[in-house]
């Protein structure tokens, strides 16, 4: 697909072009959102939100990056906005619980997350790992998820996150170190 001509068709609001875009990227968008949000329903809703944003933003897309990079960027940004919103809800719920009003705000559940693309023998361990990933600092979480869940290379991650290649290497290194610490804590706790 000639990307320039495709962008031209998208900007001209060619309906078949937008349909092609959705068909081509829907699994990537959903899988990335799923890796970050760790909830099927949230990821499904988020994927629709993302394509809605893509549709509304197409007139402003300057073509400075590839379409895939642009869409991944929107996916990551919107997913992280959602995560921050959930954290605020949790904080409010914690505050309200001090006054016995915790029922006023529904809090997202903390059940283990089983990614549908994981092999059966690894599902339990992967659920433990996904829980540990949630505890990483935002940028490390982003980089690790894009690399491990969406299988993106360092160069592409650098473009999506608008950082240097060495920053991505550093983020992934620190993410693995932190995950080791978190997992060590988990296994010590669960051996008791």
């Amino acid at each position: 697909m000639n990307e320039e001509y495709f962008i031209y068709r998208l900007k001209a609001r060619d309906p078949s072009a937008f349909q092609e875009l959705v068909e081509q990227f829907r699994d990537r968008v959903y899988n990335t959102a799923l890796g970050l949000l760790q909830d099927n329903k949230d990821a499904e809703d988020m994927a629709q939100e993302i394509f809605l944003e893509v549709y509304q933003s197409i007139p402003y897309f300057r073509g400075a990056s590839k379409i895939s990079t642009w869409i991944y960027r929107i996916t990551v940004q919107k997913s992280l906005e959602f995560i921050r919103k959930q954290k605020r809800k949790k904080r409010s719920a914690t505050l309200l619980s001090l006054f016995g009003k915790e029922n006023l705000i529904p809090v997202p559940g903390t059940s283990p997350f089983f990614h549908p693309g994981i092999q059966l023998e690894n599902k339990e361990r992967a659920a433990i790992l996904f829980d540990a990933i949630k505890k990483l600092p935002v940028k490390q979480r982003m980089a690790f998820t894009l690399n491990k869940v969406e299988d993106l290379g360092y160069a592409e991650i650098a473009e999506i996150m608008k950082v240097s290649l060495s920053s991505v290497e550093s983020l992934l290194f620190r993410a693995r170190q932190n995950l080791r610490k978190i997992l060590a804590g988990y296994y010590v706790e669960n051996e008791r």
Partner: protein
Amino acid sequence: MNKMEQQIDKTLESLDGIHRAKSNYFMYEKVMQRINNDGLKTLTRQSRIIWQMAALILILISINLLSLVYFSKTSGQSQDNVKSIANEYFSYMDPIKF
């Protein structure tokens, strides 16, 4: 390597070979539904803004017209006032009638 480290390594490797999750087959239809609904909402919002602007302009024009009418009525009276004050003040200049 101790048992704990082995556990951690295995857990860190558990995402190896992960397959991409499949999205809803009807994603495009769902997105288009939202676009059409949002389009209606945007149109309604835009119409509301246009109507509000039109109402505001009408009010401003009405105020201006009313002010014009009011001041044009009262300007006749104020001119008379000015004349009578001027006559009184400069009455000393009227020629004395013998």
